[in-house]
């Protein structure tokens, strides 16, 4: 029997993605193989590329003392969805904690005029409130204030591993007894600043991306948010909560290799995978699916493939791997949380999602590159891997039930 005080379970999942609001909506779209990636011209003047946008985002209440950036709004919508699906009203979360990741913060609220004459920019109507939404901690407060969540609040920003790391840190906090329940996830919007940055680095594929394909050209940026409700099994049992999944293992580390490039052999990610399996007390043979970071950039995907070969060496069968960024792009600080939600969905439905547009995969004898049709099979254990600029890696292992 698991130690119920040390077993971390997921009792709610909230999602807003280019498919719309909710995990069911995401699941239906992905199982149907629908891609949300589309040519976009209006993110900023002169931009021509492929992105995935959330349409019709309900705008949260604002007053004269608050302004919510799109990052905040996405996070609030996902949190509302998570709470609604948990079967409790928000008063049940009064003592809970919030751990929210993002990379963009309030950059969506700021334009280039701020750098030329900041004082004049702030004196424009709403300028001070726009500026106040800039810190990346603002998202955690927006969520906490909106839903009356009074426990510890922590914002996380570790580039593209942010969303997954928020979940890992939340799990640590639950084991420390910092709060009885923690809402953890990530949120990031489309934003001229980040699109311009990736464009300047020539990291964008102008067409829909092809992760793990030999002819991959780069990534597409998407937007969205996912929020998981985490608690100990003891807490969930005491309040008779519906357990959706178990977070069996989590690990974080750093490549210490390069500012933007992953370590070429994927050694850091491989170590992180091994640490997570050690924590979960599972072998490589027991992992039924890996939801990969799989950005579609030449450097990431080859290093990541090598990481899987290393970490799963000795498996009886090749490890099934796919990148769901091929459906709605790379949601940056939200990616790890959205992919955690997708991995939970996969374990619950026994659905191994293929990578879209994967026609000529990177050669690897140790990897079963999922492509074509959705593969249906029982999936007791699955893994979600995330990496980011600056070398951060985070790996999460989810189980469909208690073992």
């Amino acid at each position, binding site marked *: 029997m698991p130690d119920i005080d040390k077993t971390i379970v997921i009792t709610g999942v909230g999602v807003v993605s280019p498919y719309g609001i909710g995990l069911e909506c995401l699941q239906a779209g992905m199982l149907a193989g629908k891609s949300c990636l589309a040519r976009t011209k209006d993110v900023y003047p002169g931009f021509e590329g492929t992105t995935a946008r959330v349409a019709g985002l309900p705008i949260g209440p604002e007053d004269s003392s608050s302004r919510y950036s799109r990052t905040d709004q996405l996070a609030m919508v996902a949190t509302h969805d998570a709470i609604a699906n948990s079967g409790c009203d928000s008063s049940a979360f009064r003592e809970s904690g919030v751990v929210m990741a993002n990379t963009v913060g309030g950059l969506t609220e700021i334009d280039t005029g701020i750098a030329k004459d900041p004082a004049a920019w702030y004196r424009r109507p709403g300028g001070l409130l726009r500026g106040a939404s800039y810190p990346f901690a603002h998202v955690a407060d927006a969520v906490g204030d909106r839903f009356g*969540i009074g426990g510890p609040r922590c914002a*996380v920003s570790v580039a593209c591993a942010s969303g997954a790391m928020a979940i890992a*840190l939340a799990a640590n906090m639950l084991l*420390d007894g910092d709060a009885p329940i923690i809402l953890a996830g990530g949120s990031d919007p489309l934003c001229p600043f980040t699109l311009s940055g990736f464009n300047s680095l020539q990291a964008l594929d102008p067409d829909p991306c092809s992760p793990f394909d030999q002819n991959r050209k780069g990534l597409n940026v998407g937007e969205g948010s996912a929020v998981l409700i985490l608690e100990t099994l003891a807490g969930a049992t005491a309040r008779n909560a519906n357990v959706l999944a178990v977070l069996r293992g989590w690990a974080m580390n750093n490549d210490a290799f390069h500012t933007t490039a992953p370590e070429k052999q994927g050694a850091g990610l491989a170590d992180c995978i091994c640490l997570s399996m050690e924590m979960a007390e599972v072998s490589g043979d027991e992992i039924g699916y890996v939801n990969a970071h799989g950005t579609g950039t030449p450097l990431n995907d080859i290093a990541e493939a090598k990481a899987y070969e290393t970490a799963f060496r000795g498996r009886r069968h090749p490890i099934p791997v796919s990148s769901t960024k091929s459906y709605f792009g790379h949601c940056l600080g939200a990616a790890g949380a959205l992919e955690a939600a997708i991995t939970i969905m996969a374990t619950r439905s026994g659905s191994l999602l293929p990578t879209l547009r994967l026609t000529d995969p990177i050669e690897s004898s140790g990897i079963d590159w999922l492509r074509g049709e959705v593969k249906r099979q029982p999936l007791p254990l699955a893994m979600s891997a995330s990496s980011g600029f*600056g070398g951060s890696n985070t790996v999460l292992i989810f189980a469909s039930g208690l073992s």
Partner: protein
Amino acid sequence: MTRNLPPVAITGLGSVSPYGPLAGIIPPCPLEPSAITAWQTNGLRRAFVVQPFRPASVVPGLKTRRLDRLSAWALVASSLAIKDAGIDLSQVDRSRVAVVFATAYGCVDLTEAFYLSAAANGWNGTDPSTFPETLPSSPASHVSLVQGLRGPNVTVSNKDFAGETALIQAASLLRHGQADLVVVLAGDALAPTLYAWYEVAGLLSPACYNSNPFAESAGFIPGEGVAAVVMESSSRRDLQSGARSGTRVYAQINSGRWAASGQRAEIIRQMLGDSVPSLTICSGNGAPCATSPITALAREVSGDSAAIIASQAFAQGLAGTGALFHLILALSSRPIGGQALFLATAGDNGFAALLMQLP
């Protein structure tokens, strides 16, 4: 950390601040704000600014040319803290060394530079070398990269308690066996956009405009800098045996709590359990200790007999990321040993509290 968990020790201190780059404690001496010269201001504007220095003159061989000042300061402060802890990283398993960094505003210098390049050249003409350096996690990444630290690398924030959050998350990594050593950093840099926000919001002290302000004048004097502490499990063998030459334990963190609301006195008392702190270190973020409700809370939870060390104006100027400076400055005043409560408050109910043992 409400549960009974093993303590962690702070064994090294380093900082880059208006006092300059320093290893160990900061010599106690009054600090005056100085005129801002890093950018053009509309008349005299003052703050607690870090005077320009060559990072390589403090840490030989350090290359910081394309980095944001915050990243450069993080590299210098972490090197000084590691040195102060007597740690030879070549003798340490660096896959077990973590970095936890707290910042409110991240790399504002290069974020501004990126906006300026977009204003000048359009969003399609921005500088590729600048973009990765604008990320809030960039300073922590550089510390891992330069020092070869392959453990968890975490960048956190919190509007009021970013530094305290970093200390608590670092302690958590140690307690869960996810690292053996953690370099904890917290800080921010001032830039025109940040200073202008304070100014337009009417938050600045008269001392920001006048070198002879009224004593006790209200308001806020912005500050900048990065502080670093080395934190390790108190049970580490070399720490216990004294095998590392010159190593001292500055403080031991026994437990910590932080929350945005709730019955804070009750929560802190619950955390204290049977402990009776003889000292409270107040980190009044952005507000003088004497005029904030923090003193009343300190009396309520620690009793009237506990001595109080008030926060200094410079550390208050760093707002949410000043915690490590509050701690270093408090240790610099050579407090009496025993149990100490490190306390910060914000608004009506928010708080962060750490229970420490001072040698």
